[in-house]
């Protein structure tokens, strides 16, 4: 068995997904990905494009300029809250010198030939905090070429050299002759010109939008109720379906009695489909009452019937057995054997649901030759494949209108396209007669619906020499693989699912001897990436444990980290900035209060956070302040970066404090926000965000902010109480002072 040695080049998720994407491409050879026109429902401004199509200048797949001066930028990435529409439009509009007030964003159709995520290979989809990073060169080029062609058009019209022209806010000026022309007035002439092969990009010092705060293109519609989500789609003759699914993962329908359900006014049909029994009705409420009245007997013979406590027990045992090496540097075993002092700890992480605010939903219009889908679709190419397979069509016959998603956090990008496939299977069972059917999940369907962040067990050992230097590090991770058994399995190398070990195998601290091992457990619970993926647990284990080691070494946790990050300038940079802004060295905090720090790299961005907490006599934790420093390369839109840090901190803090999906004899014990608690206003701390100035290429911000908050709070709780938190959620741990 070969070992993966990451010592020279620490692996990144981007690199890894690129490999995975290549594997999927191989699977899809022979499919034709059609070019389809942009669809009218998509995008924040509704049917903007159609009217302008006739007199529009569309030099590439990403921008269309109308004779009315409208600038429509086409987003290949879904807008699910992360600000992609605004960020992507900013990049293109910058090179185009567009007037931001004229910019609209429209969602791209599903078409991997034009709209692949370049970080994934040939798959159209959004994930891994990659939207801005993969689009950066592509959209700069698209904007600059469109600008060059408009300049050529003006130059030809006025018979002046293009070099004498300037552009500002969608208007071209020729100063010597005092002439000016709007982009819109030049579209016919520009459309007739050839697209230049190469074009000069702007010097960053000339940026007018990048680094500023152009207003989000989606915010106004999200403040008056007019933004269109999948749940809001209404089509003539549309029906609404709810699906009754097996209570245990792996269960199937044995028999069902639809007598009572069929009597509910408005219920049209009750039909068995592969994932359960669907009630199809004229409205949500009728479908809901119908489903409540439905009796289904399940065959649980092949279902997962264990309890999560039993599974964790098994994981603990697995941690003591041989595992696969994910990183081997030096000789950790020897270093630990020779250590003057050893520190050890274990950590437990539960399953977590994503619980986006909009329960999953999809509208499907299926007939013998086509399948049209409306959804907050995050994985267009994969969903096209899975929908086609379910419908008995080719992917080319599946079109997707990507709408605003009411949150996702990874849930809508899944390799089995669960909610899409369900909707297609229901439309097929209904007769594939072109009747539009909206599948709507309830919150209970969502919380009990699987595709969770996996449960994990971590065991760590560290060795200090006589000089209190960290000489050895051994980290064992046990949990289910997200990739195994999926279309991404080919991306796994030597049995290692990189999503299980990212944040641990690529630990940045300068430790001479490191071993990181993975034991992949098997369970019948469907699992999936959850915002910040592997780092949602590895960063907690690494950053809490390094804190323990620092204390054992008698060192300040910030100073200890900084010394081990001497050769990691960007990690060190955010660590120092966060500590400085938080007043790390401003002296001890009052009794019952504490300060904790944590740092991570995720998706090539670097984030450090300092949390200040108070813990009362009953052990209640209140996070009073969070200071966050982020280095994500060029800051395209600092306000959106700040928003993603604020949001990531709130998302991660809710999970750290309360989040857990547990099973009793295979049955999920939670069902709604009463027992799957998330962060609320009264628990949300003030957050300060500082962005490291950088000229590096931009990297993602949707996920990295989630990772450090849990360990920062845990370390602050230790500072306040002397008690370590070793299991998620914190509400399980006794931290009374």
């Amino acid at each position, binding site marked *: 068995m070969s070992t993966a040695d990451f010592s020279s080049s620490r692996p990144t998720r981007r690199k890894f997904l690129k490999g995975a994407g290549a594997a999927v491409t191989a699977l899809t050879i022979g499919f034709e990905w059609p070019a389809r026109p942009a669809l009218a429902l998509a995008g924040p401004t509704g049917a903007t494009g159609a009217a302008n199509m006739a007199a529009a200048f569309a030099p590439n797949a990403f921008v269309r300029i109308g004779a009315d001066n409208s600038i429509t930028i086409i987003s290949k990435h879904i807008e699910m809250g992360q600000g992609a529409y605004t960020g992507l439009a900013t990049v293109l509009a910058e090179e185009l010198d567009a007037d931001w007030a004229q910019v609209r964003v429209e969602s791209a159709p599903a078409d991997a030939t034009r709209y692949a995520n370049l970080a994934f290979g040939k798959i159209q989809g959004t994930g891994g905090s990659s939207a801005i990073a993969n689009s950066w060169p592509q959209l700069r080029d698209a904007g600059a070429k469109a600008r060059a062609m408009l300049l050529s058009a003006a130059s030809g019209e006025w018979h002046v050299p293009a070099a004498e022209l300037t552009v500002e806010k969608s208007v071209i000026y020729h100063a010597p002759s005092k002439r000016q022309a709007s982009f819109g007035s030049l579209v016919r002439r520009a459309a007739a010109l050839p697209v230049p092969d190469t074009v000069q990009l702007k010097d960053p010092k000339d940026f007018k939008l990048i680094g500023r705060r152009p207003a*989000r293109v989606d915010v106004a519609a999200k403040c008056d109720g007019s933004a269109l989500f999948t749940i809001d789609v209404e089509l003539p003759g549309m029906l609404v379906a709810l699906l009754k699914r097996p209570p245990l993962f792996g269960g199937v329908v044995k028999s069902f009695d639809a007598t009572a359900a069929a009597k509910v006014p408005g219920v049209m049909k009750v039909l068995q489909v592969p994932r359960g029994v669907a009630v199809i009705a004229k409205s*949500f*409420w009728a479908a809901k009452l119908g489903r409540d009245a439905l009796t289904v007997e399940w065959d649980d013979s092949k279902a997962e019937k264990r309890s999560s406590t039993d599974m964790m027990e098994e994981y603990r045992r697995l941690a003591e057995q041989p595992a696969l090496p994910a990183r081997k540097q030096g000789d950790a075993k020897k270093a630990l054997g020779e250590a003057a002092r050893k520190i050890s700890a274990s950590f437990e992480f539960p399953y977590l649901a994503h619980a986006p*605010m909009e329960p999953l939903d999809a509208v499907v219009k299926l007939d013998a030759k086509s399948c049209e889908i409306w959804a907050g679709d995050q994985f267009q190419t994969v969903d096209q494949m899975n929908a086609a397979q379910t419908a008995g069509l080719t992917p080319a016959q599946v079109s997707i209108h990507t709408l605003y998603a009411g949150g996702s*956090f990874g849930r809508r990008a899944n390799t089995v396209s669960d909610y899409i496939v369900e909707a297609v299977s229901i439309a097929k069972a209904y007769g594939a007669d072109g009747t539009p059917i909206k599948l709507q999940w309830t919150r209970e369907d969502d919380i009990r619906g699987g595709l969770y962040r996996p449960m994990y067990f971590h065991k760590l050992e560290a060795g200090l020499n006589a000089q209190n230097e960290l000489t050895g590090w051994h980290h064992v991770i046990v949990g289910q693989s997200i990739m195994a058994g999926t279309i991404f399995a080919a991306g796994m190398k030597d049995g290692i699912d990189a999503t299980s070990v990212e944040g641990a195998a690529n630990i940045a601290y300068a430790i001479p001897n490191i071993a990181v091992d993975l034991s992949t457990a098997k369970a019948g619970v469907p699992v999936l990436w959850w915002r910040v993926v592997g780092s949602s647990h590895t960063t907690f284990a690494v950053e809490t444990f390094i804190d323990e080691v620092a204390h054992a070494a008698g060192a300040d946790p910030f100073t200890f980290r900084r010394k081990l990050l001497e050769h990691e300038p960007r990690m060190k940079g955010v660590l120092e900035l966060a500590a400085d802004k938080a007043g790390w060295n401003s002296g001890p905090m009052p009794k019952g209060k504490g300060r904790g720090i944590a740092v991570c790299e995720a998706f090539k961005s670097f984030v450090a956070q300092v949390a200040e907490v108070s813990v009362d006599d009953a052990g209640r934790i209140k996070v009073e302040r969070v200071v966050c420093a982020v280095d994500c390369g060029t800051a395209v839109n600092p306000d*959106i970066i700040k*928003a993603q840090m604020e949001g990531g901190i709130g998302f991660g803090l809710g999970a750290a404090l309360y989040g857990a999906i547990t099973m009793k004899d295979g049955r999920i014990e939670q069902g709604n926000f009463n027992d799957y608690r*998330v962060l*609320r206003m009264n628990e949300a701390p003030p957050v300060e965000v500082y962005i490291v100035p950088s000229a590096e290429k931009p990297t993602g911000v949707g996920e990295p902010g989630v990772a450090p908050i849990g360990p920062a709070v845990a370390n602050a709780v230790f500072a306040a109480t002397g008690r370590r938190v070793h299991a998620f959620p914190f509400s399980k741990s006794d931290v009374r002072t």
Partner: protein
Amino acid sequence: MATTFLLNGQSTTLDVDPNMPLLWAIREVARLHGTKFGCGMAMCGACTVHVDGQAVRSCVLSLSAVSNKQVTTIEGLKSKQAKAVQAAWIELQVPQCGYCQSGQIMSATALLEKNGAPTDAEIDGAMSGNICRCATYPRIRAAIHAAAGAAKAYGS
């Protein structure tokens, strides 16, 4: 059986099951889609509307319960406080995914219509029933304070 009530100032009669939750009557019968479904058990606040000026969760309130009452949804907001709230939401770029924001704005507006200058604790009290999974809470808090100042400036 039909239920008659004032919906965004207009007399409205909906001839459907009076036990249907107000949320679904608003969304699927009156076809106003700004009010959202999030949990179905008054745990998340995405469905918040005003009934006679009070912020209520429409997913657990039957249609019959609003007979002859005034129901306001996000589409019908008109008060100075409401306009100040929406303006502050845009100014501070509060929404991310945006799905919960109709409910947040309805709760914030109801708060400011009763209390022109809420404290942080009063904001917690009025807003903790509204979940935002994007965790836009710090901006919601700031926007409510900003809207309170703006509404005051209008003299209301």
